């Protein structure tokens, strides 16, 4: 029975529950350097494609794939080897927000590339990747803040 539990004690316990949840949520948080890395790797890949030289395309693709794998390995190896956040911790809305954000990056990147290509630009994919990268770097923290709020609300 809980008649003897003081409301202050209950509130402190709820705050502790919240702190522990935040601690786990922090493990799944994508650090800022990851966005910069992905944006930079995308530019390297795009520059390789723009060169139209097989060797540079190969180098760009290799750097992109290896770089991405290493970055993902660092993130998942660091946090998730200690504790695996629950899949439903952020709720379905978080998944939609992430998908929408990736869509937005592509929505900026691809049309920019195709428009510049049509206009005869020598570096359409590179400029498109830079534009997408800017969206990723500027918009990333906003999305991260929103996801944190969703986790706090328990939605």
């Amino acid at each position, binding site marked *: *029975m*809980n008649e003897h*539990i003081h*409301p*202050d004690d*209950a*509130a*402190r*316990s*709820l*705050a*502790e*529950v*919240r*702190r*522990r*949840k935040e*601690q*786990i*949520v922090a493990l799944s948080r994508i650090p800022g350097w990851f966005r910069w890395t992905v944006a930079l790797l995308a530019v390297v890949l795009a520059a390789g494609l723009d060169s139209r030289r097989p060797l540079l395309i190969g180098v760009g693709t290799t750097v992109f794939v290896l770089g991405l794998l290493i970055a993902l390995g660092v993130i998942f190896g660091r946090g998730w*080897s*200690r*504790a*695996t*956040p*629950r*899949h439903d*911790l952020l709720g379905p809305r978080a998944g939609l927000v992430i998908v929408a954000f990736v869509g937005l990056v592509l929505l900026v990147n691809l049309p920019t590339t195709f428009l510049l290509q049509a206009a005869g630009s020598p570096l359409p994919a590179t400029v498109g990747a830079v534009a997408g990268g800017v969206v990723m770097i500027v918009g990333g923290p906003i999305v991260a803040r929103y996801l944190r709020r969703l986790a706090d609300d328990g939605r």
Partner: protein
Amino acid sequence: MIPPKFDELIHAPTRLSIVALLAAAEDAEFRFIRDSVGLSDSALSKQLTTLEEAGYVEIRKSFVGKRPRTSARLTTVGRAAFDQHVSALQQIVAQAGRTVRPDGATQ
């Protein structure tokens, strides 16, 4: 709506921290729990054993390469008990007409 049910076993401060940590995770490594909650190996083992005997926690021992890895996870029973306990705490706070601030203080 989760039915409130106060759980004396979970409410003990150390166990509440452990269970709250596990409730947010699929599973957690023994060392991670120990360091997070600030317990010695033996103290954490004792608490986990208590929770395991109550059917709230499942302890797994495995190997990552050659390194032994001990992890813990909440069972379905443990998760339900935790949810009901949190619901009971919320009810106590609500009945007192208070709200909880992030720092744990009430207003």
